Structure formats: structure tokens, C-alpha cells
């Protein structure tokens, strides 16, 4: 399945495990347009995997296939060693795949705390009757999950805005709250859709640090999309490069940087 050894240790001492998600020969069409053309790659446990490419390369489509928002016409998705049947996005989320969105999808009318608590919904098992009566198990669950959420809030340094309605926050903080909500779910795979889009340099540095810390402290596997190549190269263990729906490069940042096709794509060399 994968040429590399089952697990290895990186230079900075993190352990990268076996294949967590394997995408095989994925093709996605919108009408006559092929957004993704026969792409295969895998994501290994514990790594930061980036998908990069110029605008319109099909990166977001790829992320939407992984999170179940789009259904590919061809190809197979293997998650934790098993073939994933056709699933709705909420079912994919319940399998332990959390995500953020390019254009931020938060619950604007709810507080930061409530937003992040929604990330814990799938850990709350008390049924609807039990919930309505609000006793015993339901109460205990709420407290446990609340404690977990508070840890995420501390980790991302957003204690000061816990009770603020999300709609009032500036853009950079919204991005952070969205990350917090995804993290609260304790995901096995965390998908970040352009986590640094629209940020200033300082905010980008903050976000980079958070991504590295999340990966380091919780061992969370992260797949992220960026079109800013510089940021990605510093962050990720391996990079997939897409252009016009095709995969044109796959490997460590250094390998990808030296790839002629990748250089052409980014410099805008005409296609044959």
C-alpha cells in the first residue's frame, strides 16, 4: 500500500505511524468539469499533511471529499484500514474527522463556549428523554465535556472571550474559535481549509504555532490546505501538490520544492 516503513520518528522527535487515511484514484466531476482527476495519496497517523496548489487546483474539493461534503464519482476512501461506504457529512464527522472552513462556518449567534461545546455533541450519549429531564447521566456528561472544552480554550488562549457571542469577534479570533471547535471533538483527523487565509503576518505566525502545538501535544493528525507555499513548507511533514485537478507532486517539502512541474505550476508556465 505504501512504500514507506510502517512508522518512523521525525527529526524533531515525533512519531509518525501507519496509514490513517488512504485515498485511491479519486475522480470528482461537476457536470462536465473534472475538479479532481484520478488522484491518490495517503495521510499517516500523527503527521501534518499539506495539500497545496494555485487557485482553482481542486484543493478544497479534495478536502470536501475527505469530509464527505462531496461524493466522488470514482475512487475509494479508506479510513483506519477499512473501505468507507458512501456517507453523509455528519456521519463522517462522527467517525472522528473534524474540519474548519475557508470562509469560517461558526454559529454566529452563540457564545464562544457554546460554539466549542457543539464539538463535543457526539460524546454526549444521553438520549432525548434523559436530556429533557436533565438528571444524572446527562448532567455528569455535560460537566465532563465542559472540562474538556475548557482545556481546549486554555490551549488556544481564548479564555478572555469565552462568553462573547461569536458574531462580535474579529476575523483572526473567529478562525481560532473554529479551530477550537474542531479540536474539542478530539478528532482522529483534523482538516483545515486555508487556516491562514486573510490573516496578517502576526496572526499567521500565531496560527502556525497553534497547528504545530496541536500536532505535538495531542498527536493529532492534520491535513491542511494552503496556497501560500512558504508557510506550508515550514509546517508540514509531507506535501501533495495539485494543479488543474491533477496531482503533480507528492513528498517532503524539500522533494516538492525541487520538482520542476511544481515550480512551473507556481510560476504559471503554459500547459501543453
Amino acid at each position: 500500500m505504501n512504500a514507506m516503513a510502517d512508522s518512523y520518528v521525525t527529526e524533531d522527535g515525533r512519531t509518525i505511524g501507519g496509514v490513517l487515511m488512504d485515498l485511491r484514484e479519486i475522480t470528482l466531476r461537476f457536470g462536465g468539469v473534472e475538479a479532481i482527476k484520478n488522484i491518490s495519496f495517503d495521510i499517516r497517523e500523527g503527521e501534518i499533511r499539506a495539500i497545496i496548489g494555485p487557485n482553482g487546483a481542486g484543493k478544497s474539493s479534495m478536502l470536501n471529499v475527505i469530509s464527505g461534503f462531496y461524493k466522488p464519482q470514482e475512487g475509494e476512501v479508506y479510513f483506519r484500514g477499512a473501505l468507507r461506504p458512501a456517507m453523509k457529512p455528519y456521519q463522517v464527522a462522527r467517525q472522528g474527522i473534524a474540519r474548519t472552513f475557508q470562509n469560517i462556518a461558526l454559529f454566529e449567534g452563540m457564545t464562544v463556549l457554546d460554539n466549542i461545546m457543539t464539538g463535543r455533541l457526539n460524546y454526549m450519549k444521553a438520549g432525548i428523554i434523559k436530556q429533557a429531564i436533565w438528571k444524572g447521566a446527562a448532567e455528569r456528561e455535560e460537566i465532563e465535556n465542559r472540562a474538556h472544552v475548557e482545556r481546549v480554550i486554555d490551549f488556544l488562549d481564548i479564555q478572555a472571550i469565552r462568553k462573547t457571542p461569536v458574531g462580535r469577534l474579529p476575523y483572526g479570533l473567529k478562525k481560532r474559535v473554529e479551530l477550537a471547535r474542531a479540536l474539542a471533538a478530539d478528532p482522529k483527523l483534523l482538516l483545515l481549509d486555508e487556516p491562514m487565509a486573510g490573516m496578517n503576518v502576526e496572526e499567521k505566525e500565531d496560527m502556525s504555532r497553534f497547528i504545530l502545538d496541536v500536532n505535538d501535544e495531542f498527536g493529532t493528525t492534520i491535513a491542511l490546505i494552503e496556497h501560500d507555499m512558504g508557510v506550508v513548507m515550514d509546517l508540514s511533514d509531507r506535501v501533495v501538490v495539485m494543479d488543474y485537478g491533477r496531482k503533480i507532486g507528492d513528498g517532503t517539502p524539500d522533494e516538492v520544492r525541487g520538482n520542476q512541474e511544481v515550480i512551473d505550476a507556481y510560476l504559471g508556465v503554459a500547459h501543453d
Partner: protein
Amino acid sequence: MSTDFLYLVEVLINGLMAGVMYSLVALGFVLIFKASGIFNYAQGVMALFAALTLAGIMEGQVPFAHIINAILGTNIHHFGWHVPAVLAILMTIVVMVGFAWGVQRFVFRHLVGQEPIILFMATIGLAYFLEGVGDLMWGSDIKTLALGLPQGGSRWLEDMTVGWGGDDFYGFYIDKLDMVATIVAILLVASLIAFSQYTKHGRAMRAVADDHQAALSVGISLNFIWILVWSLAGFVALVAGIMWGAKSGVQFSLSMIALKALPVLMLGGFTSIPGAIVGGLIIGMGEKLFEYTVGSLVGGATENWFAYVLALLFLVFRPQGLFGERIIERV
């Protein structure tokens, strides 16, 4: 205290009680509108249908007796038993949940992502369909709801207050049923708010109301939440149906109370539960007060139009209602 002032107070109290009834209906609209953006024209018919079903079950009526008799040539009408009120209410709730599931499964699941006007048209269709089904199932005759709710004015309150005014003041006349309705409405709203604020499903409901995509990404099934919301709206409809039905009998004109809820929504805003309550109270009080003070000058019957004119004024000066979300268009 002067007699005139005391009568004014009585009018206001009665207005508040009438307003509670309007609030009950408006509440059902707000629940569905918030979570799915659907303006449910069928809310009034749902109240009628719930009340019909409750009355039918209690009297031991055979559902669809007309069709059964026509096809099989039999002549059955009643099972011959009477179901106790509590059990009948539980059974009606089951029917309303089944209705919610059916609506989601057979109508709105196929209309996801359609224009609001299409969804609205679908609810108009739903309203007439449900009215027809109600007629077929339970017949079109006026039924009484024998729930044992107190009726008539409260003698106790009259006796208590009779000494307050002069010789021509006979004490406050307040309908006991209105008082029960008020208490029930307060309990209902308190439990709805507690449900949406403090439970898992309530949180999921608010999440869906806010952003569908984000809700999906944290593992919330939109389908489930919509069934839940329609069930809650069905339950609110049942409560409204019981109260209105107990007051004026279960008859098909009951479905028209939906129209009275419209001005309430204009005042309170379509997305606010407290708004529905306050809006209902203002309309109830306003129309009674207006009738009492101005009514005699313009020939009376102002209650028929007062609410709509007030709503029109709100539309002009504060289109989002008292508590609705501000409409801000960013350019």
C-alpha cells in the same frame, strides 16, 4: 380607587390572557422558522389537527370511520370506550411526532436548498392536506374537549376584589380557563428555553438554526433536528389546540388562529422565542385596550383589524420586530 381605573385594569388583564393564546400559536411558527427558515403556514391547522385527534381519541372514535364504512359497508363510529385524558394526550403526541417525521421524510427532505417561497408554498399545500386528513379521520362536526379544565369566571377573584371600587364595581371578571392557559404557557416556554439552552439536542437545534454547514461538520444530522423541531412545533400546536379548543370547541375555524399569529410575529420578530411571547401579550393587551377606549367612538369591532394595523406600523418603522435579528446588509 376609581371605578373607571379598575375597569381599565380588568381590560388589561383580560388582554394579557388573550395575548397568551396568540403567543402559543406564534411560538410554533418561531420554532420551525428559526431552525429551517420555513414559514409554516400549516401551524394553525396543526393545532386544529392535534385538537381533533385528542378529542377523537378521548371519545373512542374510529379514525377514518367514513371511508371504512363506505368501502366495507359497515356502520362503525366508536370503539365504545373512553380514553383517559393523560393517555389520550400522550397518544396525540405520538401522532404529532409521526406527522413531523412524515413531513420531513416525504416533503421537506426533497426540497432542501429550495427558495423560501417554494418552501412556503409547500406548507400551504401541507395545511390543506392536513385539514383534509383531519376531516377524513375524525369527521367535520364540532367536538368538545372534556379535559376537565375549569371554565367560567373566577368567583374567588370577584369576591376578593369586589370591595375595591365604588358601588357600581362588581370585582374583576377573569376567565379561569385563561388563567390555566397562562400557567401552562409559562411552563411550556420555560421548559422550551431550558431545553434549547441546556441540553445536547437543544444546543444542536440552535447550531442548525445558525449555520447548516457548520452543524454538519460537527456531526449533527440536519434531518434528525428538523424532525425534532417539527415534533416540538406539533407539541406546541397541541397545547394551543387544547386551550383554544377548550375555549370555543374544536371546530375547523380553529385553523384561522394562525392568521392572528402573523401580527404577533411581525411585532416579536420571526426568530425570537421571547419575542413571540411579548408580541402576543402586546397584541392581546393592545386590542382589548383599543376596543375599550377608542372602540365605541368608531363603532366597535376594532379587534378584527387592530392587530394588523399595529403590525403594519411595525413593518414600516421596525421591520425586524422587537427582538428579531437586525437586518444589516454589508456593502
